[in-house]
């Protein structure tokens, strides 16, 4: 009877160890429970160098993420056919951009990149930018890299995940990435951050 109980206890401890190890591995040490969190954990600790991204500006012409080195960049990703989250993030950015006009565009740029080059051409993005008030410190662009695998690799370096679905949905990270003048990602703002909190944090980081 005692032996049977001991065996039961050992099996229980082994099962518990297995559950803890598997759970710890899957959540990156019980830190990353969402797809967003896992992508950020896999990208590595902050600060980290932002990848090079070629851009097609909504206002016309080509540019790159590196072009904005020397200024702070608040980088977000979106696509205009997004059913919900992108528009909530855009609305928040619009509020924030109006509250921080004294720093944009000289010291800070809001950069919203579309992940849907097929549907969000430069004309459509430009129309959207004007609808939002055509703020000079807020740049809208598409990524010029047409190879999705290569683009996803670069985005993964940043901590951004992307899932493209046959029905046209493009699920992706909704976080905002603050890149310092040296081109390093220094802070990641989760999608749920409010405009007021975002502005407060940006002022604190840019004007310490």
């Amino acid at each position: 009877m005692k032996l049977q109980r001991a065996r039961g206890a050992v099996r229980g401890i082994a099962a518990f160890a297995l559950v803890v190890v598997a759970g710890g591995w899957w959540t990156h040490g019980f830190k990353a429970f969402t797809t967003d969190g896992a992508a950020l954990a896999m990208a590595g600790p902050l600060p980290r160098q932002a990848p090079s991204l070629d851009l097609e500006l909504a206002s016309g012409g080509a540019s790159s993420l590196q072009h904005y080195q020397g200024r702070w960049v608040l980088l977000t990703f979106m696509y205009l056919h997004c059913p919900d989250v992108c528009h909530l993030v855009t609305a928040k950015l619009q509020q924030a951009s109006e509250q921080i006009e004294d720093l944009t565009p000289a010291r800070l740029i809001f950069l919203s990149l579309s992940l849907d080059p097929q549907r969000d051409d430069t004309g459509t993005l430009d129309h959207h930018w004007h609808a939002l008030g055509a703020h000079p410190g807020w740049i809208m662009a598409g990524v010029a890299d047409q190879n999705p695998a290569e683009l996803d690799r670069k985005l993964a370096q940043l901590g951004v995940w992307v899932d493209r679905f046959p029905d046209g949905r493009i699920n992706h990270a909704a976080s905002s990435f603050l890149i310092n003048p040296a081109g390093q990602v220094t802070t990641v703002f989760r999608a749920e951050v409010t405009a007021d909190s975002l502005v407060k944090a940006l002022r604190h980081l840019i004007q310490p």
Partner: protein
Amino acid sequence: MIRSVIPTLLALALALPPMAGWFSATMPRHQLIQVPAMIILGACTAGGISRTRKPLIASQWGPALLILASGMILFWMIPRSIDLAANNWIADQVMHLSWFLAAATLALVLPRMHLMVSMALGTQAVAMMLAIGLVYTRYPGLICTAYNLQQQHYTGRVMLRAAPLLGLLLWTWGIRRAGSKG
């Protein structure tokens, strides 16, 4: 034996095309219909297993099976795991199998354990359902990225309404069972 076969076949029907695609298409269908159905069918399957085998399984492997079943359930409550299941057919099938097996395991093991264990696990499950319901309704972003905010809010609202009812059922059952034993 037949009492185990029928729920197993039903579970297979729910987990395989064309039913699986319909359930996975929206968050409410998946989390409010398919997952509870797999749990109920898993428990029904265990109920049909020969009663002579139950004590043997429960006494020798009880604690280990209880922990593994709880671990499986916890794993598929992680948002990242649900995303994986929604985007990958194999992971989706593993998830269905996990819910089914976890429920069958709990149905086999819990009746052989002290009532307190069942009540503690049940209360924890109700509390988690309430917590998930709150997160789904209050959180401004997507928890499970494979679905949309409208579906997330609806699923959360239903969970918030279902959790107190489940808690009431659980405690009514627990008090009656404690009374019948005492």
